[in-house]
């Protein structure tokens, strides 16, 4: 009962923060609302008995990625300039497309109505996740290191081009 309430509470909090982000024009305030949504998602993971993911969510998303966003906002003065409000037709079309996506997603998942989730607070230990990562998913996990290496090289190449051009 408490777990169900926690799932709805944190899910609602994340949805509310994302909704407020939609109407927030100030980029830093939008980043703070995104931080609230990410922390609420960490709470959602905790309610879903994914303790390791909750910790990783706080460290990686709310810590590292949010810091990257704040740094990007501070080093790009163009992000602070006053921007014209987006065209009304663009907003209406975007919201309509999102509503269609939601309706379709809910429609295709009606089969899940009969499946009971009954979340209980269990201990899905890090040992079990490590067994999965270094067992059946070992190849994917190793390939991921290449993805991260490629992204580091790409990020350095993209940001150092300006320096070499001068």
């Amino acid at each position: 009962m408490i777990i169900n309430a926690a799932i709805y509470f944190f899910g609602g909090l994340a949805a509310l923060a994302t909704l407020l982000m939609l109407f927030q024009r100030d980029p830093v305030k939008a980043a703070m609302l995104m931080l609230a949504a990410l922390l609420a998602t960490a709470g959602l993971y905790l309610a879903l008995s994914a303790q390791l993911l909750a910790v990783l969510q706080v460290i990686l998303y709310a810590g590292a990625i949010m810091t990257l966003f704040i740094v990007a906002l501070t080093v790009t003065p163009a992000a602070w300039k006053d921007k014209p409000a987006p065209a009304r037709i663009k907003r209406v079309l975007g919201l309509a497309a999102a509503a269609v996506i939601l309706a379709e997603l809910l429609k295709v998942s009606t089969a899940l109505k009969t499946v009971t989730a009954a979340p209980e607070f269990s201990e899905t230990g890090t040992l079990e996740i490590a067994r999965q990562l270094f067992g059946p998913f070992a190849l994917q996990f190793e390939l991921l290191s290449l993805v991260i290496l490629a992204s580091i090289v790409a990020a350095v190449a993209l940001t150092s081009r300006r320096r070499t051009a001068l």
Partner: protein
Amino acid sequence: MSQYHLAAISFVLFTLAAAGFLTAGGLVRMLMFLELMLNAANVALVALGPAAPSQAYAVMLFAIAAAEAGVGLALIIALASAFKTLEAGGIKELKG
């Protein structure tokens, strides 16, 4: 609680982020909503999948999200220095 309710929570999160992505004009804001879309997909994976394998996949998705944010923000910084704007509508040249 059925799995449908858990799916609905992640679908609502995904849709709100998608709405933000489609209506936002600034690149930083678009990337923020993109991250939230990936976050909602992660929630669906954890909520609906079997415990250990889905959480292992979610850990890998965290790494992919971090890589995506790193490359995306590097691209945004490069675009900002080249075009002096971060509005998606103001960037019309492919050759930098």
